[in-house]
């Protein structure tokens, strides 16, 4: 078991992070807005973590402590080789707030666009952010920022932050889908005109959904930067956005469980195939196919998934039992 966790500790954490990234794409989708801006906010969050932990509160090897200085004045000191978890949470807050502000600024004009044009605008945002980070010295150019300090002794330690965060965000989305705002989102998704006619403020709700996704992506970026120990402009690119979209579409885009399961399963799949190849006693040809052809098989499974599960693996009618009972009562109350 120890070997299992040593081997897959970082994978487990990355899987859960992928689930949250899928969730961050799912949130705007809930209001019918297909946006690929999540990778941009993810990259932003990563840079926030990288800059704070290596530049603002750098490790002082002489004092064996992380020291936060403002000019010559010492604001705070955290001794020990491990990066303080409290600062990690501060980074998450900073990244969340920054992402929210940027998302509102970006969302107000961008969400006037619809469908494919919004998609293009968000892709452009990701590209612009990438070029900006390549040019700035603060972000380390193409090499990026490395030696980001570790808040936990082992990779699996990140689970202490990631698991609660995933549960929290899943619970948040679960509740969201059942309150007025969430229903407004669904109404916008199903028919914008009708929703507007019902008195739903379109701009407000669209920007809100977009911002919630952005905040989540930014927070995930913070954890990700620490867990991979380095951050650069190759993180959170357009390609990554497409991958997250695949998580949502294969997982299922009509219930919050879809992106979570999709993110976890699809992210793990190539590594599971790698693991399968290492099973002793497997014929050599099969082992080679699993190891070297794992990305081909991954692609194949994606294609088969879209053909046989066009609505995603997890569909709301999996849980029809409960919703059928619940819905009429809610309607009566309103």
């Amino acid at each position, binding site marked *: 078991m120890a*070997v299992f966790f*040593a081997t*897959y500790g970082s*994978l487990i954490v990355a899987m859960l992070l992928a689930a949250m990234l899928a969730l961050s794409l799912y949130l705007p989708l809930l209001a019918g807005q297909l946006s690929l801006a999540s990778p941009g906010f993810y990259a932003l969050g990563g840079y926030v973590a990288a800059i704070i932990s290596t530049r603002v509160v750098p490790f002082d090897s002489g004092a064996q402590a992380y020291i936060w200085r403002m000019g010559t004045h010492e604001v705070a000191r955290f001794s020990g080789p491990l990066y303080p978890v409290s600062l990690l949470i501060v980074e998450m807050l900073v990244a969340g707030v920054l992402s929210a502000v940027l998302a509102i600024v970006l969302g107000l004009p961008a969400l006037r666009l619809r469908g494919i044009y919004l998609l293009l605008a968000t892709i452009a945002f990701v590209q612009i952010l990438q070029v900006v980070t390549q040019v700035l010295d603060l972000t380390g150019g193409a*090499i990026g920022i490395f*030696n980001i300090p570790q808040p936990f002794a082992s990779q699996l330690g990140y689970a202490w932050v990631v698991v609660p965060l995933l549960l929290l965000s899943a619970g948040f989305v679960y509740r969201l889908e059942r309150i007025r705002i969430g229903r407004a989102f669904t109404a916008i998704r199903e028919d914008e005109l009708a929703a507007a006619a019902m008195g739903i403020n379109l701009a407000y709700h669209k920007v809100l959904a977009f911002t919630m996704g952005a905040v989540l992506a930014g927070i995930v970026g913070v954890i990700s930067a620490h867990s991979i120990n380095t951050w650069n402009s190759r993180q959170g690119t357009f390609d990554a956005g497409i991958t997250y979209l695949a998580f949502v579409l294969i997982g299922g885009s009509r219930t919050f469980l879809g992106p979570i399961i999709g993110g976890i399963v699809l992210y793990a799949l190539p590594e599971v195939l790698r693991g399968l190849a290492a099973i*002793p006693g497997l014929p050599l040809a099969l*082992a080679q196919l699993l*190891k070297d052809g794992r*990305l081909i098989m991954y692609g194949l499974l994606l294609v088969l998934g879209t053909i046989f599960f066009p609505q995603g693996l997890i569909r709301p009618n999996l849980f029809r039992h409960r919703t059928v009972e619940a819905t009429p009562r809610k309607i009566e109350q309103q």
Partner: protein
Amino acid sequence: MRRIVARLSPLLVIGTWLLMACGAPTSSTTGTGATTSSTSSDTTTPATMTTTGGGATASSATTTEGGTTTNSATTTGGTTALSGDPVPLGVAVAETSNTAALGQEQVIGVTIAEKYFNDHGGINGRPLKIIRQDTAGDENGAINAFNALINQSKVLGIVGPTLSQQAFAADKIADTAKVPVVGPSNTAKGIPQIGPYVARVSAPVAVVAPNAVKAALKQNPQIKKVAVLFAQNDAFSKSETGTFQQTITKTAGLQLLPVQTFQTTDTDFTSQATSVLNQNPDLVIISGLAVDGGNLVKQLRELGYKGLIIGGNGFNTPNIYPVCKAQCDGLLIAQAYSYELVTPVNTDFRKSYQDLQKREPGQLAAQAFAGVQVFVEAMREVDKATPLKGLSVEAARTAINDQLLKGKYQTPLGPISFTPEGEVIQNDFYVAQVKMNADGATGKFVLLK
């Protein structure tokens, strides 16, 4: 509720099966962690060694025993003691993704190295087994590949990963686990400083680049104004251009014209080339990769630039010939490896490479070969002092790391050694000039003395 369970059950079954599959190797790693394809035969005698070495791949080692009975050596004493054979060395490079062009060259390099060293006695009679894991092009992939090699395959060391950015992520994992890593192509600043278990055989750009400027000044002492261009989305080019600019202004005391940037994905360089030409430089220095850099050279020449051009390390591949064709002629390139170096090991390496690929070897393959070589020689030394067989995996890894940093190696790159930190000390660097053939499609690098 029952219906939910009924509908989810196929998923659960598949999930459990996959989990078991993941867990399976872990339960059986106690005895023979090293061998993935089980049934290792007892090949400790020199006679059988030659048969294993003669096989093209390590996989054939298990079957080329001829008529001799194979007694299984999979049962070993302690839980962490090394099994009889072979000696596992991990290689984690980018075999897939958009970085695969680099990684594939490295795979060729390590494949040649595995055969070469097994033909030359292995690790004092025990065969070397290279275990490869694909890192793909991203950081998480490198971390996963390293974890699989370290924990599942129980390798004694790792050659990899391909990109510097990946190294910043994955080397930390290996260093924490106390597994020696040798970077075959990580040239960015700060790699050996990641930790005591991290070293590299790839010379940092700061050392290689200035030689080309010296060579250019030798060919044309009248150089005054220098134009510099670099691919701003490429980590290597970004480091390299810094070194070039410093060499021009500080070391050589030349005038640096405003720096132009481009992207490795660009194809049209008219605006950069025009603004460079307007400033009338005597020398142009380009840090980019083969395709974009080659195109830039071509367009500079087409727009009428006549002076010298220095290409960075990204140009150090025959792949530029088809891009800039006849216009490649005269291009100066700083190299950390030259296939024209005449040493026994490089002659053998070059020949093996030519036999396999029908072309001249490049720097990436040579550095990957050197990465395996330093491990092999360190393992041999450690094995001589205390047989690796008697050491636990952990002790062997530490001993190999200590020995690795102490040794001196005659590699295809020339003689190399390491600083205590793990930085490579390489004596020979080369500057080559491209000479294109009359057909404008093929050419060669001519070494400048």
